[in-house]
């Protein structure tokens, strides 16, 4: 009989408070490959599991800048370089008129890169994920809070980790099959 490789060990908590505390302890205990799940954003959690580098703002900034440049240069090229034509005696380069579309495209590109940047960095969409194999995990989108230590963590060892998590007053601890 072939043994199913474990993906990690998951502990369930009753409140955000417990989860944050537990996560912080786990991190302090030297576990690095960990993650926490909550039914709503808990600001402290990211810090607790040691997640600090969030690139969404950068992506958004780049997107916005690209959008702005695109907007202005497009108009400049089309109205001044490629097909200049006398419209109502206005100069070809009517920069005040070009500002609005420049602005709109800045917002558009910025917004799109924010959303899709976020999804990409989160690796979404991802319809299947091992954590879903834990029946109780369905409650993660309702009122339960989970902490997981991945099997890939150097400090990971099936029994030690399980005991460690239980020591954090988890309501239950279960193994996540990979």
């Amino acid at each position: 009989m072939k043994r199913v490789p474990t993906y990690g060990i998951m502990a369930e908590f009753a409140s955000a408070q417990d989860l944050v505390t537990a996560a912080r302890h786990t991190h302090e205990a030297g576990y690095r490959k960990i993650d926490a799940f909550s039914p709503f954003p808990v600001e402290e959690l990211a810090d607790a599991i040691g997640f600090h580098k969030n690139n969404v703002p950068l992506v958004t900034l780049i997107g916005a800048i690209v959008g702005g440049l695109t907007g202005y240069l497009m108009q400049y090229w089309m109205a001044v370089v490629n097909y200049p034509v006398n419209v109502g005696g206005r100069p070809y380069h009517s920069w005040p008129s070009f500002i609005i579309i420049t602005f709109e495209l800045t917002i558009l590109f910025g917004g799109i890169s924010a959303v899709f940047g976020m999804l990409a960095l989160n690796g979404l969409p991802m319809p299947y994920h091992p954590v879903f194999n834990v029946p109780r995990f369905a409650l993660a989108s309702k009122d339960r809070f989970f902490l997981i230590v991945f099997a890939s963590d150097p400090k990971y060892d099936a029994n030690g980790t399980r005991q460690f998590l239980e020591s954090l007053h988890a309501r239950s601890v279960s193994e996540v099959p990979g």
Partner: protein
Amino acid sequence: MPDHLDNVEVANQRAPVIEPGYTFGTITDKISSIVLTRPTSLGWVVGFGAGFLVTMMLLFALGYLFIKGTGIWGINIPIGWGFAIVNFVWWIGIGHAGTLISAILLLLRQSWRNSINRFAEAMTLFAVACAGIFPLVHTGRPWLAYWMFPYPNTMNYWPQFRSPLLWDVFAVSTYFTISLLFWFIGLIPDLATLRDRADNKYARMSYGLLAMGWRGSARHWARYESAYLLLAGLATPLVLSVHTVVSFDFAVAIVPGWHTTIFPPYFVAGAIYSGFAMVLMLAIPIRKIYGLEDFITDRHLQNSAKVMLATGWIVAYGYGIEAFTGWYGGNRYDQALLWNRLHGPYAGLYWMLLICNIFIPQLLWFRKMRTNPVWLFMISGVILVGMWLERFVIIVLSLSRDFLTSSWGMYYPTRWDWMTYFGTIGMFLTAMFLFVRILPMISIFEMRTLLPEAEVKPE
């Protein structure tokens, strides 16, 4: 932190944003059950059916329009823009409240918004969709409307970037896209909730697809939150810009009554004004029908009413300044326009719009009015009518008498004008009915954050 504010407010005996006694679980159950377990009521079927029929009428009217041409409407020379553009501006304006609530109030940490932002955003989307119809179909040759987009073509010819109409194209399409994204990413965590709770296999699958495998990981939440905030940050100037650009359609033109610098601020205020009116007209019946008084509390109604009162005064100021500059500016054409508004053939409508937009809303000074859903509902209706009249007066009245007296004219809407207008209202309602039936109309995860339990004490 929102929670602090709330506690303070509760201390001040102010109506809470959420009635006490709820847990993460009960909130989740109450809201998701409306979609998942609640049986389709007869009322819903009737309402949806009615909306659908009116939408069909819209399609009929548009079909005839495409066959015959814009001549079936009441427009003419000098009045080249009639109902189509009036409705366009009106709908776009209504849309604004949604973005304002979801974006600006988010930035301002107005956590009471959490229970109304979801359907306010939906309302925005549908309103903008309705608005988007008009600029397209009001053209003489709608099948060529795509020429307004800069795409490479054999003529090597490009759109004319000095035209406010083109600005509109970009502003409105950007606005729609951003609103859609905002609304959608707001939905993702709730879709996950529905995915995990739906019993029906197909429901589970479709919610699952839309949820894209959301599992509430801390890292995801972190990126999610920043993306959501950034989007709000981008949407805020956007929402202000959209009606500004719409107002440029008029302010940039030389028509007396259009060529006014006050337009951008006063259009934006007017937009929010009518937008909140529409929010209330939706929220009041919805919370009654679906028993959501605990989530959409009198506090929400009050705050919306206050916003309307404030924006209403900005609009009133706009009217005042318009009249003042018309008279004080000493420009013969503006003076004639002012006279024309007060005494001309459309004077009746002008007075009516003053009554609807300025006088009647003053009732909102009274707490009784602000807390009485029925009154609020009616006042909101009056404001929506008033705002529609405002656009009619600005567009039609100004065009009807411009520079050469020889070319003055009158505008009489035809039955096709009316059918198209009411048709879009039907379309809006249809979309609304569908929305409340298949998606959580209140943001579940944001509601959870309002509970005291959601708070994490720093150690």
